[in-house]
Structure formats: structure tokens, C-alpha cells
């Protein structure tokens, strides 16, 4: 079944989109939200569980203080108010991967509320209102076996892994974002991207969308242009890459427009995003019948963070990533393109640390985005996991600047670094990579090159100095690259009377 769509340009001519984003961030605390179980990703199924996160009869939750701390830091970074007193609540519904058949969450008393974040798209700034950020626990994970689609329909049995049950989540909910018009898809993407950067800078989550540690639900509605009434929204669940966020918004805008233009009503429902086809399909219908019967969790006492603690946490906030990027770009004198490439390669912090270690910004950028990015790509390794530190890169560049090695030899030094052979200086020493400037050895190599190429030598004697390149190449080959090309040239010209 294919949805009827309206071309995007036409959608924005006739409708104003309203966006809403609900982002779930899985915290990187060592233990779960309400028990002491470890949270490591990828452990064998049901090995990180206990009576509490399995919801066994009688077991009770205890709040993880570190998770509260992370929630408060996220709230502060999003310019939120921090509640002086708030409670957890039970969200009651039945599902096999939810051990207690209620999720311990927060309802009308979130720990963080009323914040904002400025999002930049192509030089334009959109202020996204943050309605709330609250704490909750994750559910287990179901795997449906036997069906063709991996979905519950058609499966002959399902397996549940409760390792994920009880992992702390922070759900960050925006207010409706209006006025973005044609830029709505980009604004949605930029919001999630900036939020992810902020989470990374705070160090509170692994922030890996592909592993599900950041999951976005995208709410969208359309209203006729100029109308100040919001339309009926759909909620597209689990959009798990930045590109998909943008595509999902674009798709839903086109689909909603087609529904509205055909005179029908948009169904208030959950939609599933399909990465492969770039489409959404209908999930369960969300109606008034869904009643979570929230009430305050009687097994927990209220969370009442002292103002002293909140202030102390305010002092631990990192520089806002967007502002930091602008500052660094200016300090380093990078073009927009250079900056974008650096960020895109995930090398911003590495370049920054390399600069701190003494390299020039351009040199740092050259190595990280050149040799090292290539290596990361070839070996399918994260760029910060190559075994090469910013200090190493700065040291290599220092050796180049001192004339001890050239760029070509520097690559051999990096090979030594990948192999863990020691510091750059030690590798130069061990591998004997230093540039040869001993005139005795060079002189002999030049002599044999002249003897081997009498025609070229004659041309140079006749004043065609440009021909020296051929002889330099021969000498460098003889010296296996370990020669200072400038000095070779000098010797050749000297010997041929130029």
C-alpha cells in the first residue's frame, strides 16, 4: 500500500507544519534506574537482571542518584527550571516486555521543565521550547521469531531480553515548533543533532543513535497557512538516525497534505518509520480509550534536589557545543567547509586537543581529516580509537616542522603508531626514518644518478634547470625517500655547474 503524497513545495505553499519532538536519551550510568544491575550494552540476554528490574513479587525500586544528577544537568543545559520537589508515577499498561506491567516514569511533576534550545539552520536561528525533561525506566526488548518481517504479526514465538528493562531514560519533550515552514525537516534534524551534541558534551550518554541510546519520536501536524489552530498530529516512533528524522518529517508533511487535500481527516495515530523504504506506516490508533491510569509511585519517596546541589551541578556544565564550535572556528580561522568537514568526521575534539598540544590548527586538521580519517575508514574503526592520540599527532607535526622527517616519512611514523611501536620520536629512531642530510651518502647517490642519465645531465648543463626533477626523483628513489629533496636539488645543480 502506497500513500498518496503531495510534492513538498506545494505542501509548504498551502500548509504550516507544527513539529514536536520527543527524544529518549539512554543514560550511561553504571547501574540501572532503580536497581544495582549493570547497564553494559550487548551482554548475553537476561544476564543483567535482578528481582527489581524483573518486577518479581515483593521487589522494590530505589532511585539511582547518578541518574537524577544526569537529568538535572541535561535540564540545566536546556535552560530548564529544576523542580524543588517531584515524584515518580506509574504508567499502567500491559505489555510482555514490561516486567511490572507499569512503567515507572514521571507524569505531571517532571524534574525539569520550561526550557529552550536555539537551533541553527542555514544561518537562521529557531528557538525550540522545551516543555519538560523527565526520568523514566526503559522496557525489555522483544524479538519476534518465525515471521518474515520480524514483527509480532506472523511470528510463532517471541523472546524477551530484560537486560534493557530498568535502564535509565530521560525523555525530552519540545513544545510545538511552528513557523519553520519549508525548513521544518531541517529544523527537526538540527534539533536532534544539536541535542545529541549537547548530550555528548555533558557526557551523560553514549549518544549512539544506531544502538538506540538516543531515540526520537516525531510528532507532526499541518494547519492551513495562516491558521492559528494546530491540526491533528501523528507520532512517528523510533526514528533512529538524523537523516531519518529529516526524511520522516518530509514524508509525513507530504502524506498529511494529501489526506487533507482529499477532504479526509488525519487520523491521530502512531506511525512506524521504515528506513529502507523511506515511508511511514500506520501503527496502533491512539484514542481516548488509552488510559494509563497514572498515579504517584507509592514505593518511592519524592525527589527533592537541594538548590545547593543544583547550583553545584550548574557549575559542571560544559560550554554550549554550538557556541563552542563558533568560537573554535574563529580562533582557528577555518572556512565553513573546513569546519563542517571537521565536525562531520567526528574530529572536532581531536583537532582541538591537537592544537592544545602545540600543532597549528591547519596541520592538526590536515592529519586528522587526511591520513587518520582514511585509516579509520579503511579499518572500520572509530577515529578516536586508532591508537593515535592528539599528543602523538602534535609530536609528528613537530618533527616535520623541525625538518627531521617529511610528510611522506610522517605516514610511516603513523604506521608505527598504529602498530604501537612507541612515541613518534622513538619510531623515527627505531625505524631509522630521519631525513638523510649527510652529503657523503647523498653526493654518491647524485653522482650515480648523473652517470645513469647522461641525456638529462646534458640538458641541465645547457641551462634547462627544470629537468633536474627527473634526477631528484632518481636520487630519492635510491635513498628510499629518506632525503631532503631541497638539498638533493642543490647538489645536482652544483655538480652540473648551475
Amino acid at each position, binding site marked *: 500500500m502506497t500513500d498518496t503524497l503531495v510534492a513538498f513545495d506545494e505542501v509548504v505553499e498551502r500548509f504550516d507544519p507544527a513539529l514536536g519532538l520527543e527524544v529518549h536519551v539512554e543514560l550511561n550510568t553504571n547501574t540501572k534506574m532503580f536497581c544495582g544491575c549493570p547497564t553494559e550494552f550487548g551482554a548475553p540476554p537476561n544476564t543483567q537482571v535482578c*528481582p527489581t528490574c*524483573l*518486577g*518479581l*513479587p*515483593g*521487589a*522494590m*525500586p*530505589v*532511585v539511582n542518584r547518578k541518574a537524577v544528577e544526569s537529568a538535572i544537568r541535561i535540564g540545566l543545559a536546556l535552560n530548564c527550571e529544576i523542580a524543588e520537589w517531584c515524584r515518580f508515577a*506509574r504508567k*499502567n499498561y*500491559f505489555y*510482555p516486555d514490561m*516486567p*511490572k*506491567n*507499569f512503567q515507572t516514569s514521571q507524569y505531571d511533576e517532571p524534574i525539569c521543565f520550561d526550557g529552550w534550545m536555539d537551533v541553527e539552520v542555514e544561518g537562521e536561528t529557531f528557538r525550540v521550547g522545551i516543555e519538560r525533561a523527565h526520568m523514566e525506566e526503559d522496557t525489555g526488548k522483544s524479538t519476534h521469531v518465525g515471521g518474515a518481517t520480524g514483527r509480532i504479526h506472523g511470528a510463532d514465538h*517471541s523472546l*524477551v531480553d530484560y537486560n534493557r528493562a530498568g535502564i535509565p531514560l530521560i525523555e525530552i519533550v519540545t513544545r510545538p515548533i511552528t513557523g519553520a515552514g519549508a525548513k521544518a525537516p531541517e529544523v527537526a534534524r538540527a534539533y536532534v543533532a544539536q541535542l545529541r551534541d549537547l548530550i555528548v558534551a555533558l557526557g551523560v550518554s553514549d549518544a549512539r543513535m544506531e544502538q538506540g541510546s538516543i531515540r526520537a519520536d516525531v510528532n507532526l501536524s499541518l494547519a492551513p497557512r495562516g491558521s492559528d489552530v494546530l491540526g491533528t498530529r501523528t507520532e512517528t516512533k523510533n526514528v533512529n538516525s538524523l537523516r531519518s528524522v529529516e526524511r520522516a518529517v518530509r514524508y509525513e508533511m507530504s502524506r498529511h497534505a494529501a489526506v487533507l487535500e482529499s477532504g479526509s481527516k488525519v487520523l491521530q495515530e502512531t506511525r512506524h518509520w521504515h528506513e529502507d523504504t523511506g515511508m511511514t506506516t500506520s501503527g496502533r490508533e491512539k484514542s481516548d480509550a488509552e*488510559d494509563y*491510569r*497514572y*498515579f504517584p509511585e*507509592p*514505593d*518511592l*519517596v519524592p525527589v527533592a534536589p537541594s538548590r545547593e546541589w543544583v547550583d553545584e551541578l550548574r557549575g559542571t556544565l560544559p560550554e554550549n557545543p554550538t557556541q563552542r564550535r563558533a568560537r573554535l572556528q574563529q580562533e582557528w580561522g577555518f572556512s565553513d567547509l573546513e569546519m563542517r568537514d571537521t565536525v562531520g568526521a567526528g574530529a572536532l575534539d581531536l583537532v582541538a586537543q591537537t592544537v592544545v598540544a602545540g600543532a597549528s590548527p591547519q596541520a592538526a586538521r590536515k592529519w586528522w581529516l587526511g591520513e587518520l580519517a582514511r585509516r579509520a575508514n579503511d579499518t572500520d574503526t572509530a577515529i578516536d580509537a586508532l591508537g593515535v592520540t592528539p599528543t602523538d599527532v602534535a609530536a609528528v607535526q613537530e618533527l616535520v616542522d623541525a625538518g627531521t622527517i617529511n610528510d611522506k616519512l610522517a605516514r610511516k611514523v603513523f604506521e608505527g603508531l598504529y602498530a604501537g611501536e612507541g612515541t613518534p620520536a622513538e619510531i623515527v629512531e627505531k625505524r631509522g626514518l630521519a631525513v638523510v642530510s649527510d652529503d657523503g651518502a647523498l653526493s654518491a647517490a647524485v653522482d650515480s644518478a648523473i652517470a645513469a642519465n647522461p641525456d638529462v645531465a646534458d640538458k641541465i648543463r645547457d641551462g634547462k634547470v627544470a629537468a633536474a626533477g627527473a634526477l631528484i626523483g632518481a636520487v630519492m628513489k635510491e635513498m628510499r625517500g629518506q632525503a631532503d629533496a631541497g638539498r638533493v636539488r642543490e647538489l645536482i645543480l652544483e655538480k652540473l655547474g648551475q
Partner: protein
Amino acid sequence: MTTELTRKTATELVDLLAARETTSVEVTGAHLDRIAAVDGDAETGVHAFLHVDAEGALATAREADERRSAGTPLSALDGIPIAVKDVLATEGLPTTCGSRILEGWVPPYDATVVRRLKDGGLPILGKTNMDEFAMGSSTEHSAYGPTRNPWDRTRIPGGSGGGSAAAVAAFEAPLAVGTDTGGSIRQPGAVTGTVGMKPTYGGVSRYGLVALANSLDQAGPVTRTVMDAALLHELIGGHDPKDSTSVDQPLPALVEAAGQGASGDLTGVRIGVVSELSGDGWQPGVMNRFQESVDLLVKAGAEVVEVSCPTFVHALATYYLILPAEASSNLAKFDAMRYGLRVVPEEGASAEQVMKATRDAGFGDEVKRRIILGTYALSSGYYDAYYGQAQKVRTLVSRDFSAAFEKVDVLVSPTAPTTAFELGAKLDDPLAMYLNDLATIPANLAGVPGISVPSGLADEDGLPVGVQILAPALADDRCYRVGAALETLLTDQWGGPLLAKAPALAPTTEGATR
């Protein structure tokens, strides 16, 4: 000798063990013999136990005797056997909560209370019967058949902790642990002539107590004397980091308070009689015994006044909104997915169909009734009118207590409006059944401690009556002091413990073995 051992209080047994006049193996064995002789089944016996762990109890007893010999007992009660209500998780022992839905479930962990019993060296005799998920006042709602009152086996032993109270009253155990959500320790204590203490909310850890209503539940001692209750309370009570609602401060000196009270002197103690917790509709024999107790308190030097707590008349209605609401959510976890009963209605049934069929087959009528009530009370559109409103009234009940405790040190009332009624008498009338907890519920709503102490036998039927002593939160010691004083004065009057008047129980099975 063994019969004599089962008649001893825990305090007396501690002395005998210390003096090497008996051993824990003898004491434990004597109680296991008694269980084998009188517990029987729901048709004939007391049926206080759902599961007896003779082997485990005797193994613990042997270890306790070794420790006594080595002079290294783990606690004051090391080696004293105990029964545990089947609502507390016991590692390796079945825990059913009186429900079919948990039949066969063996917890992989111990409740903190159970852990403390084990750490204290107490042999656990077994798990005691109860109304299903603690919903009831008669133990008739147990899926495994009712417990019978040792005073008259045609009558109810109270509930929900009828099993624990009956076990202690029938000399099957010197000590038991119960839980009290609206009176489930105190009311069975009253109708079986035993002592039952509901501690301050948060005074004893709820970790491992299968929740009925989390904001009301509290575990506590079930014993034959006030001093025994104090000893057990000091062992199981105190802060537990696994229960966020547990009180993070030391317990008051309970054994000391019970010792002080045993002198029978209450000079300077101010006692309030709650006017709303007695009167018309209360059994005359209950009121007579209560009045006698009040007179004795005056004689002991206490200053007794009448105190009004006007919102207590709304306590029952409030309770029956808060309890079902919390219970409906707590009981959602019983869905056949991970443990307990699993009913598959048809080949290829979906998870949802299995959940429905299992819950339909696994829960009894009273449980279903309360799940429906609670689901309704929490529903959107009704929340404010029911659950929200109930929480406000709850606050008013707490204020009534606070105001009363500005004038007096403790409050007293009869524990229950009637003596034990006939089995089946109120089974078809839930509202009549709920009225049994009229006097005990306010303490749960406010989180204050309360103890029920035997106050004699009603004239009409010769069945036990209890008096309830309520104290401010964290002042559990006052319950013990006043309770022990009353116990001393009454026992002197009776010329011995009330239970000495209970009829002897004929063995229910020939050649009982263990």
C-alpha cells in the same frame, strides 16, 4: 516435655536455651510435632500453614544449637522457631500469597524481614495462610481453603493474616510475622487472643513483601505476649536501603519499653479513648471488655480522657479507594509471562489471550472485585473524584491523629467490632466483611503504629476480644509500654494468660509424622 515447650513464650524459650535446659532442635521439633498434630487441612484442622519446611527448620535449629554451645548466638532469638506469612518472599520456599496465580512460585530471593530472621538464626517453620493477596478479614479468601480459629474451629481466625495468628494461638509457633494493610495483624490478634503489632509505616522494611497497597502495608510481629512482640520487632525492624520508604533512624527501645510497662505502672501517661471507634453496632461483650481495660488503665495511674477524631468515620471509604487503586497496579505483574500460573486458552493463543485467561483463572472473586474498583478509581475523568479525593481525606485523618496526640500519649479502642464470626457468615456480603476493619484502618492511613492486646472473652460467646493501642509515628515504644502494662494487669486478673482458657485441640490426624 515437648508439649510444655510449645506452651512457652519466646522469652521463656530464650531463657531455657540460655540455661541449656533445652535445645533449638527440641523446641523446633516440638512445634513441628504440634503442627503435624493439629494443623491438618482446611476441612478439619487449624490449617494455619500452607507450607511446612521441617527439614530446613531443623537444619537451622542444629546450627543454632552449635552457636549456643560455642557461646556465639546471632541474636537474642537465635534458635527460636517462627512462622512467616505467605506474602513475604522466602528464597527456596514457595510463596503463594494465598493465590492460585502464584502456585508453585519459589522466589529466588529473601524479603528483608526474612533475611533478618535468617541472620538472627531463627528456624523458619513454614509459610502461613492468608486471604488471597491479603484481601480480606477472615482468611476465607485463601485459594487454598480457610484457616480455622483455634478457639472454635467453626469460626474465622480473622484476616488477612489468620494463618499467622492461628499458628501462634494454636501453639504451632511461638512467634510469627504478619502484615497489616488495614488491620491484618491486629484484627486476627484480637479474635484469636494473641498479640499483634503494626509498626510505624516505614519502621519495618517492605522489601520482599508482595505489595497489596504499598502506602499502607507494614509487616510486624504476631506473638502471645507483648514482650515477645518487642523482641521480634527489634530484630526485624530498622532502616533498609532497599526500601526507599523505610525510616532512616534507629528504632526506639522497644524491649525496654515493654519491660517498663510490665511493672503495671502507667503514672503520668495520658490516654485518649477515641469516641468514633466504639458505640452502637459494636458487640456488647466487646464493649464490656474494652471498658474493663480502660478502668484498669486508670487504676494503673494513667490519665484517661475521651478524644474525638471526626474524620475517622470516613476512613473506611477512603481506604477502599486507595487500596484497590494501588492493588490494581501491583497485581498487573501477574500475567503468566515470567512465573506462576500460565493458562493457554487455545493452541496458538496470543500473549494477550494468555494473560487474560491466566488472570481469569488465577485470581479469586475478591481480588477481581478490588482490581475492578481500583482500575475505575484511577481512570481518567474519575481520578480526581476518587483517588485524588481519597488522598485529601487521608490527610485529614492524619491531622485528626496529630491533634489527638497533642492532648494524649496514646489512643485506645476495641480492635474489632465483634468477636470471631462463623465461617461463611459474611462471605457473600463484602461490605459487612469490610466493617471488621473499621477501627484498625485509620492507623494505616496515617502510618501510625498500633498494637492489639487480648482484653478477655466476650460474655455472649466466650470468644477473645482485643484492645488496640495507637501511638504517634515513630513512638512505637508507647504501644509496648501501655500494652505490656495492660497485659500484666489483665493476666493477674485472669490468673494466667488468656490462651490458657482456649479449648485443647484434638489431633486431626492419626500417627502424625514430620
